[in-house]
């Protein structure tokens, strides 16, 4: 194995790789999961989730032409399961927004002193917003009934 230099930059050695389920699983399990990878993966997965949600959301909102249809749909969305879904939506949206903001700052303003610390700050800020915003969503269903 040659040492990385200017002429010979750090390149991963080319391993013979056969694409199959076992090899893919082995590769995923042996992968060194660094914070940057988590930031990227969570951003991508949450993004796909939101596109799926947006599609259902816009199609569902066609009910707005009729008060009966709309208020019936809203009653469906007010079941405990959907409330957990709403909370999950808040979590997904918040992470994607804050992490997206971090990406924009890195790209546009060159914020890159401590990448790992910035990602941890992203997680802490997201968690704070999710807890603050999640309380009024979940409280009438999962907290207040048990306090009364």
């Amino acid at each position, binding site marked *: 194995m040659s040492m990385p230099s200017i002429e010979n930059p750090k390149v991963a050695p080319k391993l013979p790789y056969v694409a199959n389920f076992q090899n893919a699983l082995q590769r995923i399990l042996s992968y060194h999961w660094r914070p940057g990878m988590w930031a990227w993966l969570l951003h*991508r997965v949450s993004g796909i989730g939101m596109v799926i949600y947006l599609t259902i959301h816009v199609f569902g909102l066609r009910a707005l*032409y009729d008060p009966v249809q709309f208020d019936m749909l809203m009653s469906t969305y007010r079941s405990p399961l959907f409330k957990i879904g709403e909370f999950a939506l808040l979590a997904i949206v918040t992470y994607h927004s804050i992490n997206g903001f971090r*990406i924009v700052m890195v790209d546009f303003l060159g914020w890159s002193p401590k990448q790992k610390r910035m990602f941890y700050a992203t997680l802490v800020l997201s968690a704070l917003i999710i807890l603050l915003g999640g309380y009024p969503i979940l409280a009438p269903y999962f907290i207040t009934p048990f306090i009364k």
Partner: protein
Amino acid sequence: MSDRSAKKSGAFGWFMQRISGIVLLATLIGHFWVQHMPTDYLADETEYLAIREAYAAKNPEYKKAVEQGLISDPKFGEHIITYEKVTKRLSHPLWKAFDLLFLIFGLYHGFNGMLNIIDDYAKHKGVRLALVATCWVLAIALFVIGTQTVLTAGPYNPPSFSLTERLP
């Protein structure tokens, strides 16, 4: 590479993804604030019951749905999205513009992201074509449906004023 023009490099898409993301951050906060947080844009328990009663008295279908439990009772401390409040908000042209902005930037950002993901994983030409076409069809359909919903929602009642009063 000689063909690394602005169009092929994807720099425009990269830039616009960030710009649309910034716009979405602002509109998202507004949207979540009015539709998910306990503000005056949602109905609290008493308002909800009053709205439900008024609509049931006016609309027999609504009354039937309430009696069948399809338009359910409020929970203690709950803030509820209602037809009344949403259409009232959307009767203001600025809220219509806000929701349209949110819709258009959301669709652009979301489906541009999907195209990036397809670019990363789909290697087969036919698969790529199918996925990209699906994205475009879905995005255009959602744009048409969403725009129609926002524009037609809520009767727009401009504030009444007489021209003669304003003239000296």
